[in-house]
Each structure stands twice: as C-alpha cells, then as structure tokens.
C-alpha cells in the first residue's frame, strides 16, 4: 500500500509535467515585496518562493517552520513539535537569515535567530522566501529573507476549532469589516497542546510517549486600514505569548526547564501617492520578553528587548525605464536582562537607495546601495547589483545578482558576561547567484526557477576557546556555501477537476574554508546540520468542494559535529503528510472541514539527532465562515 501511494505520488507529478505545453503566455499575477523590488517574480533578479494564503490555510496546527519545511527549499532545524525551530538557508543558520513581519525585522535581539515554533501558521496570510539582494535592501543578513505578511480578509467572520492527536486543541477566529474608507480586521488563536506524542525511542527500542513538551500558544493580530484618494494608512498590532516545557534528547531524561515568551509588535505606515512619487513613512514598536527557567540547576534567564524603528522612503517613477527608491531609517534597541550587568542599547541609522533601470528592452538592472551605522560596532556598507534578461518576453528570463552583505553581532555576542566580546565586527559576505525563471499560464500553468549560488562569508562569529581557554565570541570563521535550488509548480483544470503540483530541491555544499586554529579538522567538512540535499513537494487534487493534498519532505543525512563524523551522522528521512478538505457554501456561510494525517507512513525519524519526531498523528478542523 505504502509503495503504491508513493508511486502514485511521483507518477502524478510526472504525468502533469508530461501535459505541459508551452502554448500560452503567462504574466505575473502578484508582486514580490521581500526583495523591495515590487515587480512580478518573472522580473526579479533572485530566487523567490511564495506560499499563498490558500496553502497556509490548509496547514492547521502547524507553525511557520513546518510550512517552510514543506513548501520551500529551506531546511528547518527542529527539536520536535513545539520545540525550538530555526531556519537554515543556503548553508547558513537562523542568525544569518532575516525574518521580517510587514517589512520589520523580528529576529531575537539577544540570540539573533527567530524561533519559528512561536509563530503559528494561521497568524499569517502569505510568506515570501528570497535569497534577496542582501543587506543592501533590509540590512543585517547574509543568506536571505523570510517575509511574513498578515493581510486582512474583509467582510467576513470566521470561527474554527481543531482537535489533534496527543492532546492538541486549537481555537481560532477572525473578523474583517469594511466601513467606507476603513477596513478593520482581527484574528486570534489559542493552542493548548499536551504534546505527549508517540515516538520510537532508540534508547529503549520501543514506542514511547514524550513525557514533556506541552505548550500553550496564544496570538492576536489586528489591523486597521484606511484609504482615501491618494493617501492610505495601515496599522497592525500583533500580540503573542507562548509557554513551553523544554524537551531534552531521549538520552538525557525529560528535563524540567520551561520557557515563556511574550511579544507585542506594532507597525504603522502611511503612504502618499503623488504624481510620479510614492512617499511612505513607517513606525515600528516592539517589546519582546523571554523567561527561561531550569530548576535543576536553579538558573533563570529573563530578558526584555525593546525596539523603536522609524523609516521613511520615497519611490520615484521617473520614467518607464527608471524607478528610484530611497530610504532612511533609525532604530533604537534596548535589552534588559539579568544576564547583563546593565541595560544594553544599540542605535542604528541606515540609508539606502535602490533602482530599477531598463536601459534596453528585455533588460532590467537593479543596483542598490545601503549604509548602516551601528553605535556598538561601526559601519557596514552594502552594495548590490542584480539583472534580469527576458529571453522570452513574459515567460522566460535569465537573472542574477551580486551582493555584499553583513550580519550584525547579536547582543549576546557582544555583551554575554562570560565570553561576550565588545570588539566584534560584523560578519561580512559576498553572495552571487545566477539562474533562470520560467512561467506560463494557460490551460496548463506552470512555473519553475533554477538558481546557482555562491556565498563566501568571512569574519564569521563563532564561540571558541580563546588563548586563555575560555569560550569567547570571535570573528574567526570563514564559510563558503555553494549550491543549486530548483523549484517548480504546475496546475491545470479539467472540467471541475483541479490538479496542482509543487516541488523544490536544494543542493547545498557549505563548509569552513580556512583553518580557525592550528589543526582545525573542520576545514572542508560539510557544516553540522546542513543537509546536502533537501526536497519538498506536494500534489493537490480538488473537485467541487473536495480537495486532497499530499506533501513529502526528504532531508539528506546530516553531520552533527564539525568533524563530519560518520559515527554521529543523523539519518536521512522522508515523511509524507496528507490533508483532506471539504468546503460547502450554504447561502453566505461556508463550512469547511480539514482532516490532516501527519507522518502518514509512521516513519521513525529525527530532525535533530535523538530528538524524535512524532509517529503518525491526526488533526481535524471545523471552520465556519460567515460572509457579508
């Protein structure tokens, strides 16, 4: 049975691709924001993946990390459901990947990473993943950008309830109202998960239940939009809190540590469209609290970081052949924690300019330049240039970019009392990529992107023993990462039947390219927890209210130490999920039932070695939506 389903899964893709006939011309249906080049994907200079609201809506009970793992080429390092979940992009870690909400950075100021387990998928309406043109657009970040959007769904009220295996309960609701020039929307969810999931315990050779790992996660996100004539304003407020038990590996017992996270983020923007200009001002306020407590060692780490960010930008549509964008921003960050002897603060001033130039038909050039000045470690200059050549107009393009990027040291890198180093510089990297993009719509629509990339980062920050033997953050690491990414999708409709299939594959070879100390055995080895090959794909079939989707994720073996030791390799895994959806409209009321079967074939696997993932589990969701 299992082999049969696998066969059908792969065969369906092959079948759909065989139906592809390039007989119609496609145009981009949406513009990309993550690259700050507000043009369709076909005109972009870099690889962009977009996960739309329809796809996210099916991911009930999942966090953003799960969605990215299933629908992008990103590898998500995850200690288990509800446990820390961090992005790896193009061989680099969560510190080097910028995560943005409505254009504002949400990476943790002390740690540098964004814990994706704190971000339920349903909170957001759309995700864009891009290698970006680097720091010239959004500042600190070496490998790329994940851009989260929360767009309103006006004129409807929705209420849903999910019940899942192992004590997982999620209640979610939303409301959106349009009143003349105003649109108001509110969305919220509360999740309570006992998370006592079944797993295969390698240490005992039997199926066990996780005894810790329970978590609660509450989210409320609201927005108010106003638009009149050539003026618009938007205000979005996002509150979240999460209470987690922290799971340990299966060899170290259940543990007793807990973590509490709470954040409030508020972004306000105003846009004025005037002649050939668009003026935009943004103010962002954020407060993020984290409280880690481990009673075993009587250790508590409490912190609160506060951000104030003001940004002003203008876009000048000079002609059909030239578009200029200039922006300046200032950001103040404060971190107050019992780990530091005093409140630490950072002031950041940034200014940048980026352009879209069309010197000749079919050629687009995207130069960009940004200067960031940080009060604590100095100045970073980040130029980039990208190009896009239409080989077949509105269908097929060659593209590429070169960018010099940086990554600011985290507060812990600078100020952690035992080993923080206030003399750190920013990590620096040069990224280049070249690729092809092909899109076509018609009876059969498809798109695919192929990119080759090369990134070299020096001054990489690593905590290593210094000359006196104490661990200290040091600018000591040079990393080279090169590889290839392919993503493609296809869809068609025959009568009332809809077929869709999306796939992405990433090959990444990432390694330390220079000795950090005498006898450094890590040189040339694949970095720990960076799979060389990662694949994700889905096949989707819909018929008058019914739909079914199969997802598959394959992750290659990973080394778990710098030594690239064969003995401690983490095994590869291939996991399938299935989602069934039935929706029916009765007058203006939509009834939707979603049933999910995760880990369909009961695969015993771990993303992080000895942190087992759940065996087969289920979730069912009922959502009622009343439209006005």
């Amino acid at each position, binding site marked *: 049975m299992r082999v049969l389903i696998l066969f059908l899964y792969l065969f369906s893709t092959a079948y759909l691709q065989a139906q592809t006939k390039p007989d119609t011309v496609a145009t981009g249906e949406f513009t990309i924001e993550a690259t700050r080049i507000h043009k369709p994907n076909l005109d972009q200079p870099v690889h962009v993946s977009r996960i739309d609201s329809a796809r996210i809506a099916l991911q009930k009970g999942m966090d953003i990390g799960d969605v990215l793992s299933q629908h992008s080429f990103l590898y998500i390092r995850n200690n288990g459901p509800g446990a820390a979940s961090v992005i790896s992009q193009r061989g680099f870690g969560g510190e080097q990947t910028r995560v943005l909400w409505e254009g504002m950075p949400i990476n943790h100021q002390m740690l540098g990473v964004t814990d994706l387990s704190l971000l339920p998928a349903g909170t957001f309406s759309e995700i864009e993943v891009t290698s970006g043109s680097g720091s010239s657009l959004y500042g600190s970040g070496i490998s790329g950008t994940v851009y989260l959007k929360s767009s309103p769904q006006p004129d409807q009220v929705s209420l849903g309830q999910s019940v899942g295996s192992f004590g997982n309960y999620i209640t979610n609701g939303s409301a959106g109202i349009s009143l003349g020039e105003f649109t108001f929307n509110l969305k919220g969810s509360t999740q309570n998960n006992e998370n006592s999931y079944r797993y295969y315990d390698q240490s005992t050779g039997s199926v066990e239940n996780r005894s810790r790992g329970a978590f609660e996660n509450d989210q409320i996100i609201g927005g108010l939009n106003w638009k009149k004539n050539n003026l618009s304003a938007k205000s979005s407020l996002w509150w979240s809190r999460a209470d987690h038990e922290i799971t340990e590996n299966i060899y170290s017992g259940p543990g007793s540590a807990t973590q509490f996270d709470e954040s409030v983020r508020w972004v306000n923007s105003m846009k004025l469209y005037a002649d050939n200009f668009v003026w935009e001002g943004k103010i962002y306020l954020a407060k993020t609290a984290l409280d880690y407590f481990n009673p075993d060692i009587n250790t508590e780490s409490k912190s609160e970081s506060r951000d104030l960010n003001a940004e002003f930008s203008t876009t000048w549509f000079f002609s059909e052949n030239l578009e200029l964008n200039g922006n300046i921003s200032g950001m103040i960050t404060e971190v107050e924690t019992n780990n530091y002897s005093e409140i630490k603060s950072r002031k950041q001033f940034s200014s940048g300019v980026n352009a879209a130039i069309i010197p000749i038909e079919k050629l687009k050039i995207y130069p960009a330049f940004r200067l960031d000045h940080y009060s604590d470690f100095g100045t970073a200059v980040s130029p980039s240039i990208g190009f896009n050549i239409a080989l077949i107009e509105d269908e097929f393009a060659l593209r590429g970019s070169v960018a010099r990027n940086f990554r600011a040291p985290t507060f812990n890198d600078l100020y952690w009392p035992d080993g923080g180093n206030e003399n750190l510089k920013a990590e620096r990297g040069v990224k280049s990529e070249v690729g092809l993009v092909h899109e076509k719509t018609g009876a059969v629509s498809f798109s695919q992107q192929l990119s080759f990339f090369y990134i070299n980062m020096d001054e990489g920050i690593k905590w290593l023993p210094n000359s006196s033997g104490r661990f200290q953050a040091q600018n000591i690491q040079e990393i080279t990462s090169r590889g290839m990414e392919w993503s493609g999708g296809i869809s068609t409709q025959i009568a009332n039947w809809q077929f869709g299939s999306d796939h992405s594959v990433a090959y990444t070879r990432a390694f330390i390219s220079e000795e950090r100390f005498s006898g450094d055995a890590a040189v040339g080895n694949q970095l720990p927890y960076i799979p*060389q090959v990662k694949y994700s794909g889905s096949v989707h079939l819909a018929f008058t209210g019914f739909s079914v989707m199969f997802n598959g994720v394959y992750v290659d073996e990973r080394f778990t130490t710098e030594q690239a030791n064969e003995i401690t390799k983490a095994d590869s895994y291939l996991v399938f999920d299935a989602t069934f959806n039935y929706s029916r409209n009765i007058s203006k009321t939509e009834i939707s039932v979603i049933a999910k079967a995760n880990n369909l074939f009961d695969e015993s696997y771990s993303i992080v070695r000895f942190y087992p993932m759940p065996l087969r589990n289920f979730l069912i969701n009922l959502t009622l939506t009343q439209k006005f």
Partner: protein
Amino acid sequence: MKYHFLKILLAALFIFTGCNTQSDPDEVTLAGVYVLNEGNIGQANASITSYNPETGEVFQNVYESVNGVPIGDALQSATLIDGRLYLVVNNSHKIEVVEPETFLNIGTINIADEASPRYIAKAGENKAYVTNLYANTVSIINLESMEETGSIDVGANPEGIAVVGTKAFVANSGFGSGNTVSVINTETDTVKETISVGDNPVGVQADASGRVWVVCVGAYDDFNTESEDESTPGELFVLNGETGTEIEQIRVGGHPGELVLDSEFGKGYLSNGTVFQINTTTYEIENENFIRGFYALGLSTLDGEIFLWGADAGNFSQDGTAFQFDLSGAKIDSFSTGVIPGHFYFDFQ
C-alpha cells in the same frame, strides 16, 4: 538504501552520496587505554576510544559498537569496582555497568530525579556512593541489584569522591561558591563532619598512603556584576584520610583541573594552564611547565613503566587528540579521540 527510488530520482539532478556506517562489534579490539569522550551536552554524542599503546591501534565508539546503542549524554567517569566497570553518564542520569574485558553491558543503574551523577566510589561490600551534582546528594547504590537504595544529603553541587577506610570524602563545589568537603561514615551512611577547604572543591583523590588530595579550583569572578574581580586562586588541600585533618595547603594559583598521582615516584601532576609537577612528599611545586596544559590528564602503569597522558578537547565541537608522555615529559605518541575527551581509564589486565 531505504529510499533508493527517491535518491535515484534526485541523483538525476545532483551528485548524491551518503550511507550510514555502523561498526561491526566483532571488529572491536579493546586495549588498555580508554578515553572517555564526554560529548556535547544535549547531543548525546558521548563515546569511548580504545588505544593499544603497543600496536598504536585505535578504535572509536567502543560502547556503541559493542552494545548497538549510544552510551548517552555526557560521559563523566569510569570506575572499576569488584570486577565490573561503572560508566557514569552525567546528563543521562544513569550508570552503565559493563564487563571491563568486553564493554558488554550487564546492567543500568538509574539515578532518580535527574540528579546529574558525576563520580562513583566503592563504599563497602556491594555498596557504592555516587555524587549528584544537581541533587546535592550522594546516592547509595546496591551493586548486586544495581539499584539506588537511598541518598545522603551533602553540601551544594558535589563533584569528586574518594573513600579511605570507612570515610568517604565528597567535594562540595557549590558551582564555584562552595568551600567544604563532606565526610560520610560509610558504615552508617551519615555525614560525620564537614571540613573547610579552599574555594570551589571539585576533584578528590586518595593516594596509596591514605592521604586525600582535594583540588580546589578557586572561585570565578561574577560576570554579572562590574564589581572588583572576585575570583580566588586555585589550591590543593591535602587531608589525613583517617582523621580528616588538614596536612598541607598548596597554593597553585589559576583555576586547576585534573590531578593525577604517581605514588611510586611521589609525584603529582596537575592540569593548571600548563601541567604542574608537584612533589607529594615535600608538597613543593617542582615544575610549573612540565608539559603543556590539557583538558584531561591520566597516569598509567604498564610493566613497571609509568606514562602521563593528556587529552586536548580542541574547540569542543570536533574530535579531540590524546597524547602519551614519559616521565621526562617527552611525547611518545598521539591518537584521535571522540568529542571532548574528558577522562582516561586504564586497564592492562
């Protein structure tokens, strides 16, 4: 491989390699020098390296190769008691009991309440004590049933333990803030007295003449405050094992690590940045730079020859290296270990 069909598909696009190699237990060749590799806390990548000094043959990951499962998370120490080898796995809160000749597992002693066991010492007939770093206790172990039968409250965060006669000496580190040694009467399983020593006592060794050597690492500066440096220098306290009275106090400075004792030539070797050579009769530091410093030290006796061993943990995230020295400090050999080689164990039987 398991997903061969998919790999073939992917191989059309990529050069694809990789298979999971497992050691064949039949190929395990044990020898007299063992390095206990702690591994990274939380990653359960502890291992044991076996080295044959005569042939130079090295075998990695001995325990998993023999028993088919990893040993656990943070291998702390190994002690031979009555013909059985007890491997204390700190962050797995357990002690694996193995045959010393084969490393074949013959039982597991679980330590309750995630107490974080560190060291084990024989404390009587069929009885052993185990220090518990988190629980501030010493567990009482029935060696025959391989069960924890009780516990004794001691000072904060106990580390090293040594038994002389009916007295067990337990170093109460206090995670740097302790300065006492608890003395347990092994016949009554009660704390008989508490002796003041230097700051942050961690290591405890008993020598052949019944003296107890306590390595006091010294307090570290409180990095959370910007007040004056509160660190204190390392010291060695030498106690009379019978009476518990202080014999000598040796100020060594720095923050010392492991101490090994050579009873035959009356020398002690202390890791303290470099390796100090100490005269255990006169209590004088004879050489502050005997050999370079190491993360772990060991001393072996084979056929009347004594060797000093040092293990370098490198950057703590890749394999380490172990070195063999003669008593002139000359290097004889070296070999690769697992991640964070933390202790040596010798068995030349």
